């Protein structure tokens, strides 16, 4: 007797090759009175115009973030509005998206990325060893063949998420789609027509052979930094760090704290005390790229020492404070703009939370 084991489940990568027959649905999506299998999950949406200058924006929809062996599969679609003037959906993906199908797999924002805010990590796409398959993802024809009025579903493989990550924020098509639940296994059934896969016709067939030979990038994820500052933008707090704006601390080219600078260090010291930071602090001076490297290095060292001395006075004994200078070697923003340079001119105080 022939047995169909399940028509209502998703499958993991380990069984995908031998069980493509299964008719599936997103896990945990059942609803009273409605067959769970007749749902197209819409887990979040955003809009994009890309480089198109007129007409309605395209609709970006996240359909699934699914764990498989060795990877995380993102299913998403690009919907081209009925009255869109585009003849090529690629143009709806924006100026940075060219890298999506290129070898330089990101994440730049044109690529897919999965952000775990709690773990402060941005997970990147896998890379392949195939010469003509720079990304483990749907073929570009998935976008070239989609017509106005259609939404084309695509997949891309990213680094495996840690076990405890249950929700991620998806970046795709240069837009952020937050709060997407991570589920298990591939979406099924596979559509009979694959290029493009129109929403509702089944799901793209994930090339598990390609996924299996692809690897996470180095690093497989980037550290996420969230900055919150005071209204004066003098003191900025991020994970394990308090950063002080050099323009507030010092006069130009000076390493002597101004009166406002002293007050700002006192404010930072209060934050460090309140955060129950560890007692081992590192004070690091940074410069923008103006002036020579040697000059910037020396200035950053002197500024770090000045802040360390003031910090020692504020915190009292019990703290171990080390001062170092990094010159212009560790920018956090572009040195091509005035605003970016101002961000780079800083003295950071790093600590280990709760140490």
């Amino acid at each position, binding site marked *: 007797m*022939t047995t169909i084991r399940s*028509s209502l489940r998703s499958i993991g990568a380990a069984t995908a090759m031998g069980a493509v027959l299964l*008719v599936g649905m997103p896990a945990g999506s059942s609803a009273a009175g409605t067959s769970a299998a007749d749902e197209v999950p819409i887990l979040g949406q955003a809009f994009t115009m890309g480089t198109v200058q007129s007409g309605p924006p395209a609709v970006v929809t996240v359909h699934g973030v699914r764990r498989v062996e060795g990877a995380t599969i993102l299913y998403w679609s690009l919907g081209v509005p009925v009255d869109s003037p585009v003849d090529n959906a690629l143009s709806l993906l924006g100026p940075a998206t060219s890298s999506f199908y290129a070898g330089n797999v990101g994440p730049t*924002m044109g690529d897919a990325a999965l952000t775990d805010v709690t773990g402060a990590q941005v997970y990147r796409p896998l890379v392949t060893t195939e010469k003509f398959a720079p990304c483990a993802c749907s073929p570009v024809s998935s976008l070239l063949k989609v017509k106005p*009025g259609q939404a084309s579903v695509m997949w891309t493989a990213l680094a495996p998420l840690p076990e405890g990550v249950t929700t991620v924020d998806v970046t795709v098509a240069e837009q952020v789609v937050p*709060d997407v639940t991570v589920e298990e296994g591939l979406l099924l059934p596979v559509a009979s027509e694959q290029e493009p896969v129109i929403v509702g016709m089944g799901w793209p067939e994930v090339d598990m052979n390609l996924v299996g030979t692809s690897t996470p990038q180095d690093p497989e994820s980037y550290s996420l930094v969230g900055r919150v500052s005071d209204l004066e933008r003098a003191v900025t707090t991020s994970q394990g760090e308090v950063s002080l704006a050099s323009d507030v601390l010092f006069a130009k080219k000076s390493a002597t704290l101004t009166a406002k600078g002293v007050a700002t260090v006192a404010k930072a010291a209060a934050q460090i005390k309140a955060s129950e930071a560890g007692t081992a602090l590192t004070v690091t001076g940074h410069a923008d790229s103006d002036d020579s490297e040697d000059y910037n290095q020396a200035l950053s060292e002197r500024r770090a020492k000045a802040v360390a001395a003031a910090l020692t006075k504020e915190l009292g004994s019990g703290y171990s404070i080390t001062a170092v200078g990094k010159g212009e070697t560790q920018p956090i923003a572009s040195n091509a703009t005035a605003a970016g340079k101002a961000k780079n001119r800083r003295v950071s105080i790093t600590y280990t939370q709760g140490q």
Partner: protein
Amino acid sequence: MNTATAATRVRSRVALASIAVAAIAALAACTDDTPEPSPSGSGSSSATASSAPAFVPSDQSAKVLAATLPAVQGSAKGTVGKQPATLNVAEVRATAGGTLLTFWFSGAQAAPLGDQGEKSWENQPTLVDVAGKKVYEPFTFTHSRGETYCLCTDAAYARGDAQPRTIYYPALPDTVTTVEVRQAGFDKPISVPVTR
């Protein structure tokens, strides 16, 4: 309803017949002697062919295309890319781990935004909690090449119809109900409620 902001699962009916037929065909060679693959998916359940819902492929594009841009909640006139433009804020939404801004520039003349793309987080709008005296800046990460990117939409220029963009920021405290969106070049802050 703004479907883009309702991060909910919208259910659209997709009938299920022909794939089931294909599945049955594919299973034709699968006999009782064939070892069952062990599904690794969570919450798996079993069903027999007789209880399997049929799958009928059906273009559901209209379901996703029914989404509409959020309405503009506030705007300000100013300058971007050295051109006069309007900054439109559609939504500031508190998510589980952060805060999502949806916005766009509009203007009659082409305004280059080369300094306001994904590599220019320092030039992006900020969210200001006036009462809490805090400024929230875009989430960033540093690429292995050394460049710092924001979790945001890249931009080339502002021209023509709305070019919707999103930027992701750190989470606001639960007590914050309104924020100001501030952008260099636009003197007037745009005050908008926080969607929760």
